[in-house]
C-alpha cells in the first residue's frame, strides 16, 4: 500500500491569532480554579460560502461566520464543558468557570503557559477558499447544470451545489500544548433526476448523485471538472432507467471501488472508536489480537493523506493525526483514541479526537478509513461470480455499533450472470453484521481506492468530514434487501 507521504513540516504564514495567548492561559487557569486534572480551550472561527443552482438558475449565494470558544475541564472521569460565542473576556471567563465547576475542590490559582509546536502540513491551500470570488464558485454549478442536461435529454432536474469552509482553530491545554491550524474544505455535488418511460408507458424516474472535493485549493476543479461530476451523476440516473426489482436474500456481491468505502466505515470503523470500546458497547471490545475479518482484509485509518477530506494537521485536541493499522490481515490491531479515552484506558491518543465545532466535546472519530488493495484484478473478480450483484454507486449507510448490524444503500446496481454484468436493479439495501461481512470477503482488488471526497460522518449529533476507500471487493453471502422473494 503506497502511503501518501506528508509534505515537510512548516509553520505557515500567521494571521493574527484568534485569541491572544495570555488570554488563553488565563482561561486555562480559570478552568483549573477548582483543582481539576486538565483543562483545554478550543477556539474556532469558520467562514462558509455556498452556491446552489436548481431549475437552471442560481437560486442563492450565501455565506456565514461562526466563531466561539469551548472550554473543557476534566476531573477524574468527569468532564465539564461550556462554550460561548461571545468572545469578550468576561463571557469567556464565565464559560471557563462554569466548566470548572465539575471539579469539587477548593481554590487553586495555578497559572499555565502554553507554547506552540510546529505542525506537519498535509494540506496547504495557497489561497484560502474564503478569498476566492463567489462568481468563480457560481460558475462551477452553472457548468455542471449545463453538462448534465447536455449529457442526455432525459435529465429533467439538476441540483448543483458548491460549498466551502475555511476553519481556523486554536487548541491550548494545561499540558502546555498550543496548536493552530487553518482547515479549508470544499465540495461540489450534483443531484439529477432522469425521466424515461417504463414498459407500461408511465413515466419512470431515477436519481443520480456525484460530487467531490477535499482539503484542496480551488484549482482542484480544473482537473476534477464540474462536467465530469455532472456526467457521472447523469450517467448513473440514465443507466438505471428500466431497472428491475432485486431478488431478496443472501447473494454474492461485488463492490465497485472508491465511495463504497462507506461499507467499511459502517461495518467496522465506528465499532473501533475508543469511546465505544471503553464503555463496552461495541462488539469489537476486548477482541484485540483476534481474527475479526478474512485474512485478505487490512483496514487503515489515516489522518495524514495529502489533501483528503478527512485529513488533519492537528486533531481537535491538539494532537497529531496518525497512520493507523486497525486490522491487519484480518487480525484486530488497534482502536482509534481521543485523549480522554486514551487516558482513561491507559493508552495514548492516536490523533482521532474530533468535534463538529466549539459547541461540541471531542470524541474519537475516523479520518480517512480504507481497505488496503489486494492482488486480484477487478476483471477477474467479476468474471469469477456466477450469480450475484454488482454494486456500482452508493447512497449512504448506518450502523448499530452494539449488535454490529449495518446497512449500506446502493443507488446503482446490476445483476451479475456468469461473470458478466446484466440488467440494472432498482435501489437495493445490503445488510450485514460487521465482522461476519468482513469474514466473507473472498477477493480484494488491486485497483485504486480513494473516494472523490464526498463523505460526512454523523455520530451523537456531530458531523465531521471523512474520507473512505475500498478497492473492488467480493463479499459472499451478503443479505440483499429487495421486494422480490
Amino acid at each position, binding site marked *: 500500500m503506497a502511503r501518501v507521504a506528508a509534505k515537510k513540516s512548516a509553520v505557515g504564514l500567521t494571521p493574527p491569532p484568534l485569541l491572544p495567548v495570555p488570554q488563553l492561559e488565563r482561561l486555562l487557569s480559570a478552568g483549573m480554579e477548582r483543582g481539576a486534572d486538565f483543562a483545554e480551550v478550543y477556539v474556532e472561527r469558520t467562514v462558509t460560502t455556498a452556491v446552489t443552482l436548481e431549475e437552471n438558475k442560481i437560486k442563492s449565494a*450565501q455565506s456565514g461566520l461562526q466563531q466561539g470558544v469551548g472550554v473543557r475541564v476534566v476531573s477524574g472521569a468527569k468532564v*465539564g464543558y461550556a462554550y460561548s460565542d461571545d468572545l469578550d473576556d468576561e463571557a469567556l471567563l464565565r464559560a471557563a468557570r462554569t466548566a470548572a465547576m465539575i471539579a469539587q475542590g477548593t481554590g487553586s490559582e495555578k497559572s499555565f503557559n502554553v507554547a506552540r509546536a510546529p505542525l506537519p502540513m498535509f494540506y496547504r491551500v495557497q489561497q484560502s477558499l474564503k478569498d476566492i470570488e463567489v462568481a468563480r464558485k457560481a460558475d462551477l454549478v452553472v457548468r455542471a447544470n449545463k453538462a448534465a442536461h447536455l449529457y442526455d435529454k432525459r435529465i429533467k432536474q439538476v441540483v448543483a451545489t458548491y460549498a466551502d469552509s475555511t476553519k481556523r482553530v486554536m487548541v491550548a491545554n494545561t499540558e502546555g500544548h498550543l496548536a493552530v491550524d487553518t482547515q479549508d474544505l470544499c465540495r461540489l455535488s450534483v443531484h439529477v433526476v432522469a425521466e424515461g418511460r417504463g414498459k407500461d408507458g408511465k413515466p419512470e424516474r431515477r436519481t443520480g448523485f456525484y460530487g467531490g472535493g477535499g482539503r484542496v485549493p480551488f484549482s482542484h476543479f480544473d482537473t476534477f471538472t464540474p462536467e465530469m461530476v455532472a456526467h457521472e451523476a447523469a450517467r448513473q440516473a440514465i443507466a438505471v432507467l428500466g431497472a428491475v426489482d432485486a431478488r431478496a436474500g443472501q447473494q454474492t456481491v461485488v463492490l465497485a471501488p472508491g465511495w463504497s468505502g462507506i461499507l467499511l466505515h459502517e461495518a467496522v470503523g465506528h465499532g473501533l472508536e475508543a469511546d465505544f470500546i471503553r464503555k463496552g458497547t461495541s462488539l469489537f471490545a476486548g477482541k484485540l489480537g483476534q481474527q475479526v475479518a478474512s485474512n485478505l482484509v487490512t483496514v487503515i485509518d489515516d489522518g495524514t493523506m495529502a489533501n483528503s477530506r478527512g485529513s488533519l494537521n492537528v486533531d481537535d485536541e491538539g494532537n497529531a493525526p496518525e497512520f493507523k493499522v486497525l486490522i491487519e490481515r484480518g487480525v484486530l490491531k488497534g482502536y482509534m483514541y481521543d485523549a480522554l479515552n486514551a487516558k482513561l484506558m491507559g493508552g495514548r491518543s492516536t490523533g482521532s479526537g474530533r468535534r463538529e465545532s466549539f459547541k461540541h466535546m471531542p470524541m474519537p472519530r475516523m479520518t480517512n478509513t480504507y481497505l488496503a488493495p489486494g492482488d486480484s484484478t477487478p476483471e477477474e473478480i467479476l468474471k469469477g461470480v456466477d450469480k450475484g450483484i454488482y454494486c456500482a454507486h452508493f447512497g449512504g449507510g448506518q450502523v448499530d455499533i*452494539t449488535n454490529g448490524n*449495518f446497512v449500506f444503500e446502493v443507488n446503482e446496481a446490476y445483476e451479475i450472470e456468469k461473470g458478466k454484468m446484466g440488467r440494472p436493479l432498482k435501489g437495493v439495501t445490503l445488510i450485514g453484521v460487521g465482522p461476519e461481512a468482513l469474514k466473507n470477503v473472498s477477493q480484494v482488488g488491486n485497483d485504486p481506492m480513494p473516494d472523490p471526497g464526498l463523505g460526512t460522518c454523523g455520530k451523537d449529533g456531530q458531523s465531521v468530514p471523512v474520507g473512505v476507500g475500498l478497492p473492488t471487493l467480493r463479499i459472499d453471502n451478503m*443479505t440483499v*434487501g*429487495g421486494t422480490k422473494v
Partner: protein
Amino acid sequence: MSTDYQALAKQMVARAKKKGAKQAEAYIEVGRESSVRVRDGQIEDLTQATSKGAGIRVFVKDRLGFAWTSDFTTEAINSSVDRAVQLAEAAAPNKLNGLPTKKQLGAPSDVGPLFDEAVANLDPEWKIKSALEMEKAGKAYDPRVKTFDSVGAGDHVNEVYLASSEGASNGYQGTYVYLYAMPVAADGPQLQTSYWVDYKRFLDELDAPEKIGVEAARRAVRMLGASKVKSQKVPVIFDPMMAAAFVSGIAAAANGDAVFKQSSFLASKLGQSIAPKNVTLVDDGLMKRGLGTSPFDGEGVATRRTAIVEQGVLRSFLYDTFTARKAKAESTGNASRGYRSLPAIGTNNLYLEPGTTSPEELIKGVKNGFYVTAMLGHGANVVTGEFSRGANGLWITDGALGKPVQEVTVAGNLLDMLMAIDGIGSDLTFRGSTGAPTIRFAELTVSGE
C-alpha cells in the same frame, strides 16, 4: 447585559434596505442549553452554554442573497448584512422571488403557551438525579443490562425574533426538556442496544425517569438472541416510533418543492385516494404545547393545521412562500429554518391520526409476521417511492410476539405500503414533533436468509 434583539433585527433590515436591497428579512435565534450524562452512578459530563445567531435574507433586483453570523459585534452584524447584499449579485434573477407580503404573513397564530418557567429555571441537580434514576432503573430491570451507551437529561430555552421589510416583526420563546437512555444488554457474545426518550416543552408532561429507564431496558433485553429469518412476504407491524419514521417519509414526498419539480412520487396524486379511509395524516403547527408548535414559521407566515391525507385522499402539499408562488398555491406555514439556513419546507407537528384498535389486537390478528421496533438506513427514496431499510424487531407467531429478529430488511414502495395499511392502533405516541400510532401493513417483503 440585555440586548433588544427585536430592535437588532429591525436595524439589520433597515441597513440592508439602505445598501440596496428591495426586500430584507432578519431572523435571530438566542438560546441556552444545559445537559448532563451519567455513568455508573457518577456524572460523566455536564455541558452549559449560551449561543445566538442572526441570518439576513435579501432580495436585490429579484436576486437572493443570504448571510449569517454568530458574532454580534456591530462590525460583524453590519458586514454580514453587506455581504448578503453583495452575494445577491452572484444569484440569478427570478421574478417569483420575494418575501411574504403583509397579507401573506397574516397575524401570528394563537398557539397558547410554549414556555415553561419550571423548565427555564430547572435545577441542574434535578437533571443529575433524573439521569441517575434512569440508569438505576434500567440496570434493576434485568441483570443483563450491563451498561449504557449514554444516559442523560437536558433542557434548552430558545428565543426567535423575526423582522422584515414587508412588516413582519415578532418573536416568541419556548422551552424544551428531555430524558434519554440507551442501555446495552449482554448475553453471551451478543450485545443489543435500544433507545428510549421523552422530549417535551413542559416539565409536568415529561415521563418519570424510572419509566424511561425501564422502557429502554425492556426494549434492549428483549432483542437478546436475535437472528435472521428467511426471506418472505408477510404482514408487518411498525411500532409507533417506526410508524412515525414512515409517515415522515410520506410528508417528505408531500413537500411542495419536490412536487413542483416532479421529484416526488406523490406529484400527480392530489385529490386521489392513496390510502384506506382510516388514514389521516396531519401537519399541525397549532397543536397545544406541541414540540413543533410556533406562532409563525421561518419566514413569519402564520402557522396552521394542514391535512395532508384526509380519509385516504391526498388533500394538500406543504409549502413555503417561494414554492407556493411557483405552484400557484398558498403557503401552508411550513417554512422551516435556523439562523444559518434559508427557509425550506419542513413539518411542524406531524402525526397520523389514531384508530380505535389496540396495538395488542393488531398483533393478535397476525399468524406469521414481523413486528418492527428499530430501523437502520435513510429509508425512502422520495422520487421513486422505493423504501428499503434494515430492521430489528420481534417475530409474530399465532398472534403473539416471539423471538427477536435482526439483520433483515423490510422493503416496499411507499404508494403500495400506504394502500397496504390494514390496521391503525389507538396508541398515538409523540417522542418528538412527529407522532404515530402502531400501524399494520397487510404484506411487505422481509429479506433475510
